[in-house]
């Protein structure tokens, strides 16, 4: 008998709880009307940033493309006349991208970066393929002061490339001789 | 005015024949029980017709008992089939020798 009473009480408790919830204000955030401010480091749409001089940071090293688990990044590297590498074309297929951020981690020049801008959906799947023009932006992204060529492989007044402390001779990339 | 009682009897007869054929000719325990059900149903049809023919409810009362028998038969029969299936893994009556 006490069992029955207890279970009836438990049932009544449950119903009362849900009934009380009926009069609470819903905690839903309604999305297009209210956009929750996302943290700057949240990972969504990928951009290619420029260095503080306004030059492209990307040196087309293929590291991002190699590390990408879904192989959504592809590019073609070329060189300027002064030996500076850059990407002739650079393509990210956002239909495939899983926004894991590994490309950003792999990037030696901090060129490829993820932004909080997540709502770039399209009706046509092929329009999710972004070309270099779509990816390149006019600012430095998360690392405003970082300039790759200030830090690595440059000749100074005292010493030439590869002669600084803790530096190796530059690798001759055009030849396969040691 | 519906039809002569003969016609009801003929219908019941055909049904009974089909049920008997199913029960004797099929080699599957479940189909045998199905055949029995068809035969019982045929009997009910004949009894209901008879109840109308003689304007007496005796026939309908018998049908109620036929229902009870059918339900009993099917519950015990299917329980037997399940336990036989557990033993031998087959519902072929030829397997039980």
């Amino acid at each position, binding site marked *: 008998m006490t069992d029955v009473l207890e279970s009836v009480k438990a049932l009544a408790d449950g119903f009362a709880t849900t009934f009380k919830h009926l009069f609470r204000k819903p905690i839903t955030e309604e999305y297009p009307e209210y956009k929750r401010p996302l943290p700057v480091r949240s990972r969504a749409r990928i951009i290619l940033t420029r260095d503080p001089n306004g030059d492209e940071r990307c040196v087309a090293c293929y590291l991002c493309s190699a590390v990408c688990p879904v192989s959504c990044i592809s590019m073609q590297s070329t060189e300027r006349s002064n030996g500076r590498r850059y990407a002739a074309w650079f393509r990210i297929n956002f239909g495939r991208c899983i926004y894991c951020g590994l490309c950003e981690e792999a990037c030696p020049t901090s060129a490829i970066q993820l932004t909080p801008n997540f709502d770039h959906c399209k009706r046509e799947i092929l329009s999710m393929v972004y070309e270099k023009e779509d990816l390149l932006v006019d600012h430095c992204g998360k690392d405003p002061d970082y300039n790759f060529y200030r830090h690595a492989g440059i000749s100074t007044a005292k010493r030439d490339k590869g002669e600084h402390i803790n530096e190796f001779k530059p690798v001759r990339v055009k030849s396969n001789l040691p | *005015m*519906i*039809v*002569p*009682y*003969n016609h*009801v*009897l003929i*219908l019941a*007869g*055909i*049904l009974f*024949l*089909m*049920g*008997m*054929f*199913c029960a*004797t*000719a*099929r*080699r*599957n325990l*479940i*189909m045998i029980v*199905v*055949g029995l*059900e*068809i035969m019982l*149903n045929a009997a*009910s049809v004949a009894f*209901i017709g008879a*109840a*109308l*023919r003689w*304007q007496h*409810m005796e026939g*309908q*009362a018998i*049908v*109620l*008992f036929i*229902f*009870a*028998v*059918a*339900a*009993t038969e099917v*519950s*015990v029969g*299917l*329980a*037997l*089939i*399940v*336990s036989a*299936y*557990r033993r031998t*893994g*087959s519902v072929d009556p030829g397997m039980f020798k």
Partner: protein
Amino acid sequence: MTFYTILFYILAALIIVTTGLAITRRNMVHTIVYLVFSFFGSAMLFYLLGAPLLAALEVIIYAGAIMILFLFIIMMLKEEAPESRLFPFRQWLPATLLGFAYLVLGSLLVVSADPETGEPLQIATASPAMFGEYLFRTHWLAIEIASLLLLIALVGALRLGRFDESESRKAEDAS
């Protein structure tokens, strides 16, 4: 030829065709579905022949309970290899013999019956209340016996269907 006569023949055709299809199916689920139609037709026939209560009971017990039980068992038993021959030759002999004897006897009975049976049936309906009263006044003992029978069937089915521990262990060892 009244409306009811036509209805009777339509129902009779439905019952015979669906039953015939049912007993010749290889797939037992199809058998059950055809039989449900057959019993549904029988129920409507019962209604036509003045037994509304039994018509409802026919659908509830036959179509609703017994056939579902069959379906349940068929679904629970593992898929069998279909019978190689639907009607094996060994089985033909008794079936045809029995059928033939039955046909002869049946047609003799139908022919030699009293001439009154040739007259069309009158329409009458036994209301559930009337039927119940008749049943419990004249057949109360039979009702009790039937309910006892059902109880025994319940107990028997429970005993037969109970999962035997030792048997399952044996089956596991074998496999």
